[in-house]
């Protein structure tokens, strides 16, 4: 990796200042970066994908490492909470089981012991073109998304173009399903945005980023509100290799169930298939008002994948994701599959 200046900070304001005062970068990937668990940024630095001249250590900031109740049945999760803490938290496991599952599905125990909630949401894409130093792709300021016509087995079937990355976060689809907001502190103070609006499609904004953060922005925490469906939430991740892998496809699902397993609310968000967590409102609508049974779920799964635009090598993601939608809903609905 390139040499860089390391700065320890103890407050969010200091962190923002440290990022803001860094020399302006020649390239967006040369910009000063915050570091927490370092599980993603170090890999990008070692491969010269990011080349920050200044690295700001957030680990010294107090109070961002807590999972707290918001007093109304919801959660406030600090950005520095580790994935291990999240998956092991009794509060999370009891009331937001899908979130504990999503945290558990990440990487390996070693990665989860260090990786943080904030870092997980801000991971850079795993696209193998993006990750090769020598390849200057669209997301690195080049002119071409090589995955569009190249080796795109692991790439997007929704929301692709001009870049076809998939978002690598496992927490993101589940948190979006749970209606989470994210608080960000930047040069102009604090703002809170729905997590669904935090991620941006390549077609909608800056190709060099996957979210709305500016260089000097710091995520402080995420707020997961109380909901009737949180208790019936699940995260079903399909890995090509169980021992350690990113999602080939994943489904975050949550439902509110009435009598006879009738669904009054549903959230279905797909992971591993789009550049952002991919919510499928039509599928949610197809489920609401229905009593859960295998026939309904098969139809919902079909609706969820409507409009998918597979590339040359990832058409399998359609039937695979349909299966996962069906199975995730069956799990939260207590149905046998």
């Amino acid at each position, binding site marked *: *990796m*390139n*040499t860089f200046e390391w700065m320890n900070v103890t407050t969010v304001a200091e962190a923002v200042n440290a990022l803001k005062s860094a020399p302006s970068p020649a390239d967006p990937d040369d910009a000063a970066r915050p570091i927490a668990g370092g599980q993603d940024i170090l890999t990008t630095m070692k491969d*010269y994908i990011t080349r920050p001249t200044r690295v700001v250590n957030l680990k010294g900031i107090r109070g961002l490492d807590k999972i707290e109740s918001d007093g109304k049945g919801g959660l406030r999760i600090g950005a520095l909470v580790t994935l291990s803490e999240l998956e092991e938290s009794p509060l999370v496991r009891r009331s937001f089981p899908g979130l504990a599952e999503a945290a558990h599905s990440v990487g390996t125990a070693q990665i989860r012991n260090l990786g943080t909630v904030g870092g997980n949401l801000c991971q850079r894409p*795993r696209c*193998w*073109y993006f*990750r*090769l130093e*020598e*390849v200057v792709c669209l997301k690195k300021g080049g002119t071409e998304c*090589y995955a569009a*016509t*190249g*080796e795109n*087995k692991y790439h997007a079937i929704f929301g692709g173009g001009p870049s076809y990355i998939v978002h690598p976060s496992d927490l993101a689809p589940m948190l979006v399903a749970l209606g989470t907001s994210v608080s960000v502190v930047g040069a102009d103070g604090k703002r809170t945005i729905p997590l669904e609006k935090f991620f941006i499609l390549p077609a909608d904004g800056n190709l060099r980023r996957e979210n709305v953060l500016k260089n000097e922005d710091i995520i402080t925490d995420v707020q997961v509100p109380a909901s009737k469906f949180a208790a019936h939430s699940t995260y079903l991740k*399909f890995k*090509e*290799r*169980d*021992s*350690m*892998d990113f999602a*080939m496809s994943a489904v975050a699902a949550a439902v509110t169930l009435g009598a006879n397993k009738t669904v009054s609310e549903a959230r279905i968000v797909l992971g591993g298939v789009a550049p952002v967590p991919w919510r499928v409102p039509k599928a949610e609508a197809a489920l609401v008002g229905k009593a859960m049974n295998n026939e309904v779920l098969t139809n919902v799964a079909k609706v969820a994948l409507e409009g998918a635009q597979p590339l040359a*090598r*990832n*058409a*399998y993601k359609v*039937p*695979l994701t349909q*299966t*996962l939608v069906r199975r995730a809903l069956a799990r939260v609905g207590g149905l046998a*599959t």
Partner: protein
Amino acid sequence: MPQQPQAQPSPTPPKKKKIRVPRVINGVEQMVEIEVDDVAGPGWGPNDKHTLLNHRLTRVDGPLKVSGAAKYTYDVRLPNMLYGRVRRCPHAHARIKKFDSSAALRMPGVKAIIQTPLTEFRFAGSPVAAVAATTPELAQDAARAIVVEYEVLPHVVIPDAAIKANAPRVLPTEGPGGEDNLAAKGKQGDPQKVEAAFATCDAVVEAEYRTPRLHHCCLETHGMVVDFSGGDTATIYATTQGTFTIPQDAARELGLPQSAVTATVQHMGGGFGSKFGIGIEGMMACRLSKETKAPVKLMLTRTDEFLMTGNRSGSWQKLKGGAKKDGTLVAVQATQYRLGGVGQGSQAGQPYAVYRAADTYREIYALHTNEDSAIAMRAPGHPQTSFAIESLLDELAYKIGMDPVAFRKKNMPDAMYHRQLERGAQEINWAKRNPIPGGSPGPLKRGMGCAAGTWGGGGNDQCKVDVTVTRDGAVTVAVGTQDLGTGTRTFTRAIVAEELGLQIKDVVEQIGNSKLGGANASGGSTTAASLSPSVKDGAYKARMALAEKFSPLLGNAKPDEIVFANGNVSAGGKSLAWKQACAALPPAGVVAHGVWRSDLQTRGVHGAVFAEVDVDVETGKVRPVKLLQVQDGGLPLNRLTMESQINGGMIQALGMALYETRVMDADLGVQLNPSFVDYKLPGALEMPELIPLIDDEDKRELVIGIAEAAIIPAIGAIANAVFNACGARIRELPITPDKILMALAAERRSA
């Protein structure tokens, strides 16, 4: 004073005989004729009568390894040592236009930059230059700072494109190594006869099978530490499969006589065929050391390792097989492409030697692409060939409606396979499998498959062993050989300990040093059958020499009547403890020199694997449930190590069958997955139940290597189990969920 052997040679020189033995050249075994003494010495004795051999011995270097005390090349740190890093060519085919290292050379800590002798690069990852600096990070920064400009030339990395007439040319037109992208390498059989034979068959299957290029994935990357400071001698710490493959080349690079260079390899983190000779990285390390007059450590990074240290040959095999209703394999026709990149690649000829067909015809080609050269990797050419033939035979068996085990037996001339298949079938409960592919209910479908393999595993005469016993009773066995993690240290000790009636802990081995007695490179499963006869010979000669010395203490018993057992030497009712007896030795003790004896080893192993898998037909996921291998190996020197070898082989086969592949981008000409994130080795959660079964019905009282045999059959067995489970025949490895889902969807469409 140099010690002389105490055992006397026989008074008349023994008769000589000529035999053919495997010798390993760059990891590939080649048969050569040698002359050996035509004498039959004492044998190993019955396989079930050993006190240490053929038992389960924990490896003597185990505690060192699990505690971290074992010192690998990677761990070597010397005073004033510099670190080397490599600059690689990013283009699949390019010529160097400009090379300017002046700015890089001025960077802090940078001591030297050298260019490789190459000016034209024919694969992405080809090394261009190397840097020595005071830290690896500074060396890396400097390597990146070298200014290199290329003339980028047309490339081709996809075999289907490379075979086309107008494809960019991979290799030079003339000169050494120059040949067309598609180069014929041999034909065998009568094509007309085979074609006619197909007409007589009840069932014919014609299909293409493909296996990707694979990586060795040694835990320890390639590299060496060159301890040279400009003086008269040098020591090379090497991670190598051949201690004696190092000094000559290193000496040439350093400008020293070969005798001035010592190679040492105490512990090494795996080779699997990829670590012979100093390699281009070793050459660069030597040159950097020579230039800086300082020790240089050049260990490749994991990325380097993927991109520039070679890999297993891929294969593309067009097969046609025909059988009679009764299961007789009548004819096999094969067009085999070895996918060796800029190298030759490897592939055993079809039909694979396990099986016999009346009429066969094959054509073998090297099909070149702009990729790093294929090199030897555990059983070069065999897993590829085995997977294809085992798949084809399975397809034929299902087509004629015959049990796949019975079908195989019908076409296996060697009865040992029949026994192994029968045992495996019984152990895995083959009779209970669902014979109808995809026939079990529900989305999670279970299936079973089987396959068989073959390998040589014989030895050669390169090992020279010294066994020394001193007055304090210490026993040392010394030979320059290397332990790749395969248990060489342990069996070397065990042979001597058993011969002298001692325990493993009573013997110390000295290995991994080129100043010790010569030894062969560890390739082709030749180590055990080369080393163990020499160790046995040395141990036996030591015992006879000792017996002569002990005789006066034991009532002048004849040497061959003195019994060495349980830590005592005894004869005629008298018994002495080992140390007590040794105290009577002359001050210099006893030294015996062991040489190879062909009558203590042989070649030719078999092996059958049964696989059980679950396939989720709604996700395409294969969950390996059980792998069971029945493996013969003559006399197992150490049952525990042999089981580990079999397990390790099955695990590597599992990776090849289900997970691993080298992914290339056609346009960019680069590997897309040069890391352990994207090159998917199976991990702990992928492991099935592993059942290694040693075939003790093999009564050969001879040593045979089985390391390569262990990797061959499981791949076909797994592929066949997948078919039996779900009804999808995946003919291109690895068998990943996307392929299964798409194959099942295609079948549904055609149904």
